[in-house]
């Protein structure tokens, strides 16, 4: 295990894409943490300045102001916090549900596996956005509920993924050997199956960060996610689209933020895949 990590780290350093991706992610993290100090107008997450509304980008407001006079640059910065939070919570939640279910199903097989497969089949026959929308509408429109909704729509993918990994690992020689030596399933699961199954899931999860951010932005578009005046990027684009013909900056900058954030997560994920499993370029 430790050796694999060292190998991975070495390969990471040599892969330019991964380095770029990770640096960008680190940058976003930094921005999110330092938001209250970097943002020139930190109160603009709530405060309004009607006199300054619709100011184009200038030295005073780098990204301009929106329809209520709030500084967009500051709001985009605070939005970083929100987006990272969304990505982390949703992915973590989905993994927390999906990994245990999937690994148990994959390792033990039999009835458990059948049941899991059927349940995930049902979930997977829904377009994930539809499910997220419906759950979000049920729970009520708010950012927290949107996160729960997306996580519920997302976990089946992870469960399936790790299940198929677990299945193939179960057949491997060293597992057979361990079983022959009398190892119990529990030990097998934790020491052999789980660590070796995680790689594709990690890759998928890091790429899903971006998709989750876009999904939550889509939900905001429908009014099902964050509520105004929360400076969530998707919400800002949603509201900004009413003005983008005359005041293009309200939509452009949050959009760029989403693009770059998702890009960096995807590049990182791609790179991670190359590192963690250079032979398994299966997808």
């Amino acid at each position, binding site marked *: 295990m430790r050796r694999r990590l060292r190998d991975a780290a070495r390969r990471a350093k040599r892969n330019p894409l991964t380095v770029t991706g990770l640096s960008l992610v680190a940058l976003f993290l930094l921005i999110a943490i330092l938001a209250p100090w970097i943002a020139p107008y930190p109160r603009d997450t709530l*405060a*309004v300045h009607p006199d300054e509304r619709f100011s184009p980008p200038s030295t005073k407001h780098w990204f301009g102001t929106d*329809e*209520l006079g709030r500084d967009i640059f500051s709001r985009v910065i605070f939005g970083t916090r929100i987006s990272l939070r969304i990505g982390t919570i949703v992915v973590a939640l989905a993994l927390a549900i999906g990994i245990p279910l999937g690994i148990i199903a994959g390792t033990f097989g039999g009835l458990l596996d059948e049941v899991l497969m059927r349940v995930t089949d049902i979930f997977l026959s829904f377009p994930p956005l539809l499910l997220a929308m419906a759950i979000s509408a049920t729970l*009520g*429109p708010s950012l927290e509920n949107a996160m729960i909704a997306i996580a519920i729509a997302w976990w089946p993918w992870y469960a399936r993924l790790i299940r198929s990994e677990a299945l193939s690992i179960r057949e491997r020689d060293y597992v057979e050997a361990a079983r022959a030596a009398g190892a119990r399933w529990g030990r097998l699961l934790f020491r052999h199956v789980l660590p070796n199954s995680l790689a594709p899931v990690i890759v998928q999860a890091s790429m899903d960060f971006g998709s989750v951010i876009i999904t939550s932005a889509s939900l905001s578009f429908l*009014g099902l996610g964050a509520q105004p005046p929360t400076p969530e990027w998707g919400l800002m684009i949603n509201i900004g689209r009413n003005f983008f013909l005359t005041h293009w900056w309200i939509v452009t900058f949050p959009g760029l933020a989403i693009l770059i954030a998702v890009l960096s997560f995807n590049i990182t994920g791609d790179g991670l895949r190359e590192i963690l499993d250079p032979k398994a370029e299966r997808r």
Partner: protein
Amino acid sequence: MKEGISALLFKIGLTSLFLVFAVFTLSIVVTGQELQVAVHLQGAEVVPYWDPSDGASGEIGLMNNLYEALLRYNAVTNTFTPILATSYEQSEDAKTWTFKLRKGVKFHTGNTMDARAVKASIDRTIERDRGSAYIWSPVDSIEVVDDYTVRFHLRQSAPLDLIAAAGYCAYIFDPEYSDHDWFNAGNDSGTGPYTVESSEGSEKVITKKFDDYWGGWEGKHFDRVVFLSVSEASTRRLMLETGKADFCEQLPPTDIDALKGNPAVRVEVNPSFQNLMVLYNNQRAPLDNKLVRRAMSYLIPYEDTVAVALGGHGHVSRGVIPYGLWGYSDRVETFTDSPTVAKALLAQAGYPDGGFKLLLTYPAGYEDIRMTVELWKAACAELNITLDTRAMPTAERNAIARSPDPEKRQDIYLLYWWPDYANPDSFLSGMFYTQERPAYNLGYYSNPVFDALIDYVVTLPTGSQEAIDMMVELQNILQQDAAGIAVWDMQYRRAISASLKGYVDNAAYPNVAFWYNCYRE
């Protein structure tokens, strides 16, 4: 190696380009210069209701061109234009109304309109009892006096001419073609100048002129009118600017202001009877305390909301009856934007430092309401009051507001209000008359004195001095109690193609263009 792949890809690319080019050269577009086509844009669905007896919302634009009522009301001059009725008279007690009908009017189905058809149409609307059909509630019976005379017998006196001229549920249609499913299949059986040619879902309806229209087709008219629903305001504006649309019923203030300099577009800002209402939950703490309600009302930045949310196209409200409707008066007291007064009131009520949270729901998808809410929220935050604001679709909002469990209800409910016909008591009774199971009294206000006065005022002749005085008194009761307040009275912002002539705005028919009167020049 390199040449191999690139060459192949190049060849494929070239072939596809050639194919595309071939398609283009094969096409000939016939320009529609002989046909006059007008395009009517709106944000909402064009036909949420095909059945003329059921209407209550976005279909008003289309329906008022397919169907006609007995009269048409002009809100500016306060006069009636005879449409399907040529004249009418009322008894002294205003309980009997006799209408003489126009002869030679044909339905789109070919049948002739007569008194029997009028009675059957209105009877059906009353019986179906959907949407705005309640406007006919004063009617006891309808009598066919002869082929072209109809008499209405009312239970109580009411302005039947206004009712018969309503924008909804007052249409006359062919009773032989009045099956609900037939209507829903996209058919119409009206007398209006245009009839449906084709439709696609509820977003697009193409209408063509009805050759046998009683008004005749002399002069310049449109041959086709297309009603289109485009939800994106920016797209509507782009279509206007590029000449793809003629009439856009509502555009946001920023787009209107941007279009003002455009020679291809004419911008009109017209009066309306629509306002934004705030209903406080009168039955739950902390808003069950009048002082708190009044304090909250002093926190709304009224002028800012008109400037920001309406782009200046509107007025700060003075009482719940909107500017321009009789009953509006400057004798009605108002609240102003005064945080210091609010703070004092809150201290008096026992909340010197604020410290409470209120659940506010408002309709999703309306920028002006959203901006108003955000401005109010920021102002409340200054006094340490948290407004938990939720934009919700109507279905869910109303489920919460009408929930039988009072704990589940919201603290503040926002909505637009406009009358079904040009009568102010809709504002008062619709939202403030005691309702055991609330329909739109979603502040759950109950005041027997108020109720009694409303019962009395509806018996008074419309627009009389006594009625006006009563309206003022009723509005002042509401202001004193701060049961619910109106924030702003909006104006309708329209953008019209400069080549479109003949359009006259009429506040009694919100967002309706009578296309028969319009032409292109």
